[in-house]
């Protein structure tokens, strides 16, 4: 190989080869960090919505998740409530608030409200809410304390690595079935043992060829 530098090249010229290398590495690290930062993951970023709906306000009044997200136990999709569900109460309560004008407009015209999806999985991923709920994975495990969010935001990245954290060790996250919709549930001190018992009770096959099968989600 021909020599890179002429014998008269000074230290600055020689150093430049190191600097170029560092710039390339620095650029790649920056890109990688950007994809892991809220800029890429959108964790904690509240999306603008037609109505600034507050999960905190509604769940603090004691409304169950399933009053609006009706199909969470039966379907892959948890369900976004029809305008009718809003109007059940808001035809009477706050019926003249300007903030709710889009809801009344939708009710009058029959045009749907258009919400901006906060939890958006890529199209090549299959996810089913009902099986997770049925096997003792609570809302707050993935969605965080939605009951403390004035505006809805993502609590977790929903990246594949994050999914696998649980699919590799579901005993750390599984909870009793009557606590699935309990937003304040925290794992007990002996979660590792309780979790294993619960998995056995729910007949969850934790074998890696099932829980980590590519086809489980990429079908």
């Amino acid at each position: 190989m021909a020599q890179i530098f002429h014998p008269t090249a000074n230290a600055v010229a020689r150093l430049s080869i190191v600097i170029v290398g560092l710039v390339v590495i620095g650029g790649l690290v920056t890109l990688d960090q950007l994809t892991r930062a809220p800029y890429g993951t959108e964790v904690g970023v509240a999306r603008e919505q037609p109505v600034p709906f507050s999960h905190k306000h509604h769940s603090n009044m004691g409304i169950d998740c399933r009053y609006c997200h009706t199909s969470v136990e039966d379907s892959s999709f948890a369900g976004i409530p029809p305008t009718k569900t809003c109007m059940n109460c808001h035809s009477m309560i706050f019926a003249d608030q300007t903030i709710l004008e889009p809801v009344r407009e939708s009710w009058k015209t029959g045009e749907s409200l258009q919400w901006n999806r906060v939890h958006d999985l890529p199209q090549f991923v299959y996810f089913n809410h009902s099986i997770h709920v049925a096997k003792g994975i609570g809302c707050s495990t993935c969605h965080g304390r939605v009951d403390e969010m004035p505006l809805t935001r993502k609590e977790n990245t929903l990246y594949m690595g994050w999914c696998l954290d649980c699919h590799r060790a579901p005993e750390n996250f599984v909870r009793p079935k009557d606590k699935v919709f309990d937003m304040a549930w925290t794992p007990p001190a002996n979660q590792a043992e309780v979790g294993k018992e619960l998995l056995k009770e729910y007949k969850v096959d934790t074998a890696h060829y099932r829980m980590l099968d590519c086809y489980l989600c990429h079908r």
Partner: protein
Amino acid sequence: MNETSFQPESDVGMTLSEARAQLAKARGRNYWRSLEQLASRGNFQAMLKREMPRQATDVEVSDWDPIDRRDFIRLMGASLALAGLTACTKQHEEKIVPYVKAPEELIPGRPQFYATAFVHDGYAQGVLAESHMGRPTKIEGNPEHPRV
């Protein structure tokens, strides 16, 4: 056809703007009828060749001049590297458009099945129709229909 109106001004071929200018001058029946006809005029073909990358003309079957192995690997390597760049994009925002009044017994994300019938040779044929939020996706015979 008035061929002269499409003669290029120089021997090196037309630029795209020259081609446009030529076409702008054309009136009535002097218009070209197909791109092939336009391309065969004057030096337009030469201009096209110059517009396209050199590598693209290398694979032309008419003048078979196989690319050597190194060029091929270089091209494929660049294509692969650039293909990765398409992943460097943010997921576009998606809308959720719920019902205003949800139909009864519909579970979003799950299909509904309707027992219905169509007329064949004057008789009703029982079928089951699969429906996703009102969109039929599959129709098959209904084995429990009395006519079967």
